[in-house]
């Protein structure tokens, strides 16, 4: 049985080693390729080949490798992840070999190799992760690496735009998925897939979690209406399209849905959501591919159709649906990879990707033709291929005609494009005289994949119970015992299957593209509009949130005033809310009628404070501020606090002297703000003042603890030998603090001196 060959003898930590080696290699790969040229890709294929062998041999297990406190790298090898490990590594090896023939020596190939291996390792990590957060990390890593791979031709603006689009769509989907995981965590209490159990149907958060996770899967697996990035991503070199956009990355969403099926299929929404999504995707894909004649775009749309069909199958509880899912995932990876590679070879040989320009190349390119034809057979679903087995089971699913329609849509599209890419270019009259066979490295992949598709199908009875049933067990959450055979007898289903294959071939043979301006039928246009509007929107939003500085930042030309306005309004609002919400406040400050002298001081200080605002020149403003301060000091005096008044007066004088010194050098006042800005600023200022005054009144309504003031006053003479209480506090009771303040002043003075010295040296 081609399942695990031997179940012991492998050292522990194999999964960790697979990932570790992969990421290490992604760092080293650039040097390999730089040293060996494109041939280096073939050397690098040793890594996936080794992983493939490991995947065949390693025992199924769940292991949590402790890494750091609280963080474990939880990995899991079971049927589902084993199947994907084998597909990723097997295809990866063949495509790396293909790349060694595909690329001419050119700059940046090393970077490409690094990203490619990095992607491969991330993809392996994605399917091996047993922890949802870990899966998310790898998920985003595949987005990042695919961004680098799609944008490989970074000179071309369209490649850059496509890369960015694919990245943003899938990364945003990943965020929704992460949110879904966190919501799911609130239901299951764990991030480990192997410990999640299942969500009870009446769970409150089941549907939201499912919707969020499916949103992530739909973006990654190009489900309608998020499919638009996939055809655009065909700007990537062919090895990337063959690897990422047929077999691996786009399957990540499907993989995750399969992984969560035992946990989440009990949510009522599961079936209708997945079946609806899958059916819509498959039908839209069929409709769209009728408009295209670019081989890679056609293949992209059939990939989309296949992904739709796979999601549709996952939505059904039927056993045959699951069997069809397992067989189709495998078959699709094998034949679609081969067809992409074939298309790449034909492009290389003829210089065009227009499928209608290819004709009669079979004699010139026999090996490519052989591989392409075998793959096309599997895609058409001819007897004796894996594609046939998958289609057979899909048609066996009982119930609604919806299943038949989706299967038919998917099979027709696959057949049409397969015959256009894998068969028809090699027959008929020859148009391209110069085309010659591609190097062996480039036909090896299609041939191996085509042969594998047939060989595996014929021998499925031997190994299906091993590998495929293990996958079934992962999907079901319990062991299964399914029958696997390459042929099911001549019945109604067989007739339908044959009919679909024939019809698909006929369509591919006879049908021409419907028009030259393909519709997108998705969010493509809204996407472009949104992306175009984003910078402006973000700039607007942030300039509102971050008023100081021009946000796009050519210069730090922001206005200080706006910053201060922000600071004060926030404090005002917070304090006002606090005051309002802390219940009724007694303003119980005893009111005493002021004497004449005091009243005059109050009026003087108040009037001057108002006048400051209207002062025409800086110096007059400073003088008026001085009057306010002096007035306050004199009021202290009338209340019998000469020491406080003295201190206040001294501080006030000092401030005025310094302010005059500084402001002397500043330019004149200028009116820079418009009318309503002044009103706004005045409102903020008044609001702040009012709120602070209210706060002060509120807290003064009851006397503070007596020992603070009275205690210090009482201790002033006996302990500090001083009658000026402020003085004794400063130089005796809190002398250390004063020392600290002096330190602050010294630092300030040295800083100012330094700045002044710099100015003088500048001038010199």
């Amino acid at each position, binding site marked *: 049985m081609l399942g695990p060959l031997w179940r012991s003898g492998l050292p522990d930590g194999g999964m960790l080693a697979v990932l570790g080696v992969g990421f290490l290699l992604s760092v080293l790969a650039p040097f390999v390729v730089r040293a060996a040229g494109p041939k280096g890709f073939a050397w690098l294929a040793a890594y996936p080949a080794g992983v493939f062998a490991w995947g065949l041999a390693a025992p199924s297990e769940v292991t949590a490798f402790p*890494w*750091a*406190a609280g*963080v474990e790298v939880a990995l899991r090898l079971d049927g589902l992840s084993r199947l994907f490990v084998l597909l990723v590594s097997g295809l990866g090896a063949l495509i790396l070999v293909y790349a060694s023939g595909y690329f001419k020596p050119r700059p940046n190939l090393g970077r490409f190799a690094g990203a490619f291996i990095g992607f491969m390792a991330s993809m392996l990590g994605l399917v091996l992760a047993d922890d949802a*957060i870990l899966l998310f*990390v790898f998920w*985003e*890593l595949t987005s990042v690496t695919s961004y680098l791979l799609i944008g490989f031709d970074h000179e071309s603006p369209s490649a850059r735009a496509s890369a960015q689009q694919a990245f943003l769509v899938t*990364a945003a989907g990943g*965020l929704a998925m992460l*949110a879904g995981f*966190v919501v799911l965590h609130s239901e299951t209490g764990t991030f480990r897939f192997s410990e999640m159990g299942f969500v009870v149907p009446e769970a409150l958060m089941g549907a939201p979690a499912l919707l969020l996770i499916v949103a992530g899967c739909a973006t990654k697996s190009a489900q309608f209406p998020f499919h638009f990035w996939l055809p655009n991503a065909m700007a990537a070199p062919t090895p990337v399209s063959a690897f990422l956009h047929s077999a691996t990355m786009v399957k990540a969403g499907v993989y995750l849905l399969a992984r969560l099926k035992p946990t989440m299929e009990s949510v009522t929404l599961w079936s209708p959501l997945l079946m609806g999504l899958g059916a819509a995707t498959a039908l839209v894909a069929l409709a769209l591919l009728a408009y295209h004649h670019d081989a890679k775009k056609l293949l992209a749309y059939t990939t989309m159709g296949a992904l739709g069909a796979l999601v549709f199958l996952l939505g059904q509880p039927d056993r045959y649906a699951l069997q069809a899912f397992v067989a189709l995932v495998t078959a699709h990876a094998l034949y679609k990879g081969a067809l992409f590679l074939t298309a790449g070879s034909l492009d290389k040989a003829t210089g065009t990707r227009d499928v209608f320009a290819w004709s009669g190349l079979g004699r010139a390119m026999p090996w490519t033709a052989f591989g392409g034809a075998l793959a096309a057979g599997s895609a058409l679903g001819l007897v004796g291929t894996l594609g046939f087995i998958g289609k057979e089971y899909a048609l066996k699913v009982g119930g609604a005609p919806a299943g038949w329609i989706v299967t038919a849509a998917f099979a027709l599209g696959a057949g049409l494009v397969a015959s256009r890419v894998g068969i028809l270019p090699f027959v008929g009259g020859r148009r391209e005289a110069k085309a010659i066979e591609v190097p062996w490295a480039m036909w090896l992949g299609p041939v191996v994949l085509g042969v594998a598709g047939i060989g595996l199908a014929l021998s499925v009875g031997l190994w299906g119970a091993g590998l495929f049933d293990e996958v079934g067990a992962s999907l079901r959450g319990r062991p299964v015992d399914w029958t696997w055979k390459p042929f099911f007898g001549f019945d109604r289903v067989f007739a339908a299957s044959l009919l679909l294959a024939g019809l698909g071939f006929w369509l591919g043979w006879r049908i021409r593209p419907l028009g030259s301006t393909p519709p997108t039928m998705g969010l493509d246009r809204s996407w472009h509009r949104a992306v175009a509007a984003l910078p402006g929107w*973000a700039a607007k*939003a*942030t300039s509102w*949130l*971050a*008023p*100081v*500085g021009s*946000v*796009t*930042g050519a210069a*730090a030309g*922001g206005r*200080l005033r706006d*910053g*201060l306005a*922000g*600071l*004060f309004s*926030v*404090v005002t609002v*917070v*304090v006002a809310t*606090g005051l309002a919400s802390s*219940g009724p*406040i007694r303003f119980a400050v005893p009111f005493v009628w002021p004497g004449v002298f005091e009243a005059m001081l109050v009026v003087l200080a108040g009037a001057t404070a108002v006048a400051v605002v209207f002062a025409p020149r800086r110096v007059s403003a400073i003088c008026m501020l001085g009057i306010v301060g002096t007035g306050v000091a004199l009021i202290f005096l009338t209340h019998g606090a000469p020491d406080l008044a003295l201190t206040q007066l001294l501080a006030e004088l000092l401030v005025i002297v310094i302010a005059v010194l500084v402001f002397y050098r500043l330019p004149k006042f200028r009116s820079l703000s418009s009318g309503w800005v002044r009103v706004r600023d005045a409102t903020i200022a008044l609001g702040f003042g009012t709120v602070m005054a209210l*706060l002060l009144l509120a*807290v003064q*309504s009851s006397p*503070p603890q007596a020992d*603070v003031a009275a*205690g210090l006053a009482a201790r002033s003479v*006996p302990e500090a030998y001083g009658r000026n209480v402020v003085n004794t506090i400063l130089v005796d009771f*809190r002398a*250390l*603090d004063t020392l*600290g*303040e002096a*330190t*602050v002043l010294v630092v*300030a003075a*040295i*800083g100012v001196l*330094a*700045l002044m*010295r*710099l100015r003088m040296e*500048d001038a010199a």
Partner: protein
Amino acid sequence: MSYQPIPTIDWWAIAPVSIVMVTGIVALLIEMFRPNRNNNTIVAVSLVGLFLAGLSVVPQFSMPFGSSFGGMVVRDYLGLVLQLLLITVCFVAFLFSEPYLREKRIAFAEFYQLALWASAGGMIMVTTENLLMFFLGLEVLGIALYCLTGMCRQELRSEESAMKYFLLGAFGTAFVLMGIAYLYGPTGSLRIDAVSIAVASDQPHFVLMALFGFGLLLVGLCFKSALVPFHQWTPDVYQGAPTNVTAFMASTSKIAAIGALIRVLAAGAPLVSYWFPIMFWVAILSMVVGNFAALVQKDVKRTLGYSSVANGGYMLVAVLAHVQAPEKVSLASTLFFITGYGVMTMGAFAVVSLAARDGKEGTRFQDLHGLWHRAPFAAGCLILFVASLIGVPPTVGFFGKMFIFNDALAAGLLPLALVLAVTSVVSAYYYLGIIQAVFVQEEGAVKNESGRPQAGLNLAVLLCALAIFGISLGAENVLKFMAPAEDGRQPVAERTVAQR
């Protein structure tokens, strides 16, 4: 009149701060006696001083924890780790500053003195539970930074940002002082636990005063930590300041302010129902505004400025998780993240400082073009720093965010965990832009030899890179070291609760 016996003085507790202060004074004297020479001696002396200060911190980990100097100095894990970190940050900044300052033609010795004193101020802030000491530390740190920001006198941008920083900062500090006054009024206590005393007094007016005092204190601290909505100064000042000052400020100011914030929030436990929802939103806003505003920047330093706002938000999430559930969540992940943040910020800015050439400095993204060719080692390390800032495993940044994420979930702060994860992914977009800029070929390809990195810078970058590797490889041990051990060394929040 009675003389009290002189108490035994815990010299160790003030040794690190004193050494750094004195080193600054020595640097000043050297400059005085040997004016107009190059600064090599000063750099060397400063580095030695910082090293000694670091050495004086290490043995304290095994000394009994608690407060001395009448509660003005406190020795605990939080303080020791952050002191060590502040010293390291200053050390790294000095390593790459001299080449940069010379390249920018502003190689004045004052940078070293002021930076040393700023460090000392930060160290005071994180090792005191006395509000007045805390205020003094804040002032020393702040005033030195205002001057440093304006050090590049030939650039209008530098002067303007210094002025903005000074004026806005003065208001921030004023709020702190007002807050302290409101706490002192009802309790007569200048200690951080004045809040508990006021609440325990059970007089509504005292509680009200404590509430507003505490609130104003928080405003000042949020300002210093550059948390939304008090972040407005950050991008301007980051952009305007000389790059080495930006690096120093980004790390020191953030570390000191967050360290103080931890103590203040822990002491504010009796009022938690009032401030928790506010700080909750401050964290969310910081992460969202910081990351989204960074998306549209065209200047690397502004981008990193907004990124620092976002990182402040992440740290606040960790602090809130600790305050919310001190029995489940220790401060270890906060300290871990702050350490990582300090290292990667220093590294990233050190590399960005290479954009300065011949007295000019451009910090737009395109000014970094071709850096890969001029300084392959530094550019390579920049990838590491940026990867860590994004949070790519297995870097420090990844572990830090992971720990905080777990903490937030453990403390039941699901929305914060979610916003943290989502905005981190958003941040990848602008961080990748930095890497992209470094690897683009230089337009016109003018070979300019003067912008080559010097040994000091390479050493600084190497140290940061090694630290990132070291901390991530030994994440478990680092975390264990930072997690308070069992021998009576409780987390800050628990201890404050216990004191009540």
